[in-house]
């Protein structure tokens, strides 16, 4: 993982609001980057961008509004948490935004404490999400090293089937099962069957 600090992306067509938010967050110790439109943000943010942070998104913008941008972000698989800000948020807008996975919905003018709490929470969520994704990727990589036979036996082990039963079910010796088992544990990088089960279950979350 890169050690680059997280960035708060601010998408608001109002120059004053955008630069004020940027200055405010910078004085709170965050790094920010401003965009004057949804399009500008999408162009500078490649698919699966590795950047960490969160997006503060104005609900009402010309051309593409916040909700449309949120859909685009989701479609592109960008996992950055989104905080909506709005001059006059309507209830239906807020509901839609939250249903589509927005973290928060803050009304302008923005209360400092609420803003800081939301940004911090979003950044924590982003880094959690990132490490979970990283772990998932590494587990998947390890799974890919298993042979078909090993996968078959692994699912039986995870299902709690005893070696003796596996041997008789598959028509092989118990000794062979033992050999497969130790190879599986080695390839998956775990010490015992309990850890293996935890790993496989975590993948299904």
């Amino acid at each position, binding site marked *: 993982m890169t050690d680059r600090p997280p960035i708060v992306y601010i998408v608001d067509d*109002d120059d*004053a*609001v955008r*630069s*004020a*938010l940027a*200055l*405010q967050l*910078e*004085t*709170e110790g965050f790094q920010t980057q401003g965009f004057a439109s949804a399009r500008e943000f999408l162009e500078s943010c490649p698919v699966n961008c590795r950047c960490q942070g969160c997006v503060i998104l104005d609900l*009402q913008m010309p051309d593409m509004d916040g909700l449309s941008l949120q859909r685009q972000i989701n479609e592109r698989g960008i996992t950055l948490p989104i905080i909506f*800000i709005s*001059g*006059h948020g309507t209830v239906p807008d807020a509901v839609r935004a939250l249903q589509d996975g927005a973290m928060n919905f803050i*009304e*302008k*003018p*923005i209360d*400092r404490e609420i803003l800081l709490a939301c940004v911090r929470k979003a950044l924590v969520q982003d880094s959690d999400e990132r490490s979970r994704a990283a772990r998932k990727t590494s587990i998947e990589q390890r799974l890919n090293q298993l042979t078909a036979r090993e996968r078959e036996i692994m699912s039986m082990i995870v299902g709690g089937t005893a070696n003796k039963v596996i041997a008789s079910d598959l028509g092989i010796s118990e000794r062979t099962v033992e050999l497969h088992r130790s190879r599986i544990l080695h390839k998956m990088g775990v010490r015992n069957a309990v850890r293996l089960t935890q790993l496989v279950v975590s993948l299904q979350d």
Partner: protein
Amino acid sequence: MTQRISDQGVGITSPNKVQHTDPFADDPKVSASVLDVAGVFVVVLDPTGRITYFNVTCEHATGYTAKEMVGTYVWDKLIVPEQRQAVENVFHDLVRQPGVQEHENYWLTNSGKLICIHWSNTSILGTGGEVRWVIGTGLDITEKKRVQNQLEEQAAKLRAVVETAVDGIITIDERGIIESVNPAAERLFAYPADELIGMNISTLMPAPYREEHDRYISDYLDSGDAKIIGIGREVRGLSRDGRIFPINLVVSEVSLPGKRLFTGIVRDISDRQLIEKRERQRLAEHAHAARLAALGEMASGIAHELNQPLAAIVSFADACRNLIDKEEIPRDIMRDALAQISEQGVRAGDIIRRLRQFVRTGTLDREVVNLNALINDVLAMVAHEIHLNEVDVKLRLKEYLSSVWADKLQIEQVLLNLVRNAIEAMEDSPKHGLLIESTEDDNQMLVRIQDSGCGLETAPENLFKAFYTTKEKGTGLGLSISYSIIEAHGGTLSANSNDDGGATFWFSLPAADDIE
């Protein structure tokens, strides 16, 4: 007369005779000729009623010959059976009490036709004073009778139409004095006919139509300028019980020898006007609602717009607070942030100014408007509320009030709003007096609406602020909209509490010809 007939008789019958002798005495044929050519019916009856003489005119008219008739009773062939007894009675009366007597009866001719005859009868007495002959001379009045009957029938038909007409029909003379009325007019104005007849027609109209009508009639008589003749006009009627109602009046002129009459047909158009009023009211209320909706939409838009500079100000200020806590204050950044704060404050002010401008300058659809008429219209719109709340409405409207150049619907909205407020303010008040007054001063029309309600619960200057209300269901926009409407028309709207309770609202509008 006798002399002249005898002269003629002489001329026709015996031109060679000496003129100074009496031809009737001289020759019986003279009398007979006269009787035959005079063109009148002549019959001579004996005291029992038998015909002894039947002249040529009788023969021609009846188709019977004298020969046939002489010796028969006069009522035998010539009188229809139903009248026979009556004719006999007339005859016997004449015999009992001799003298000259006139009557009419019908003769039945040989061909079955009836002819109407006007008779002058007399009796010739004998030496003993007894009746010797009864002489009847008659004129054929069949045609005259027919025309008369026809006229009577026409008159009766006309009377029936007039009597049963739904519209009031009134005839007046040149001075406007009522000469006749039909039952519909009696019903309409709640006066009996005998009271109406002789009254001046203008008594049936409230001011200002009353004066207007008198003027129209005198204008017409003076100059022939027919402002009201032949054209239907909408005016107001005033009934005996004080009810004022809209009527359509059509006046036509009837010229009779030596006399001019005017006929007025009066139709009560309350119903039609009610429908129109409702429609107008609906429109006015719709306009009010649309205005409120537009305001609401605008308020929401304004909220968003205002929140932008506010959000910037708040964030910049928070940033400055953070910056000032730093050991080394970045002065440039802070100066910039503070400049932004003041700039955003100005921006917020601009937005509010735009809002005020929008409220003030809705587009006006101006026309010439008579405020008195508008007041009456609005009162008609709230007639139901007035009745329901038992409000005692007094009008003190200046006659011939100058017109204003205004958006009728908007001014109507203002009046409706003020009158409704007044009525609502009096709901819990013991007194329910509403006075509406119109005056004119220095080219300014002034309308005052005075109620006897709870009075103003706040300083007058708060009243016209948007979103200020003391009503449970009020939006607090009615008076502020009224205020901006009057302001947009170049007038003013003010209010104060009355000394004896209640409140007075008044607005002024410039006269139509005072606006460039």
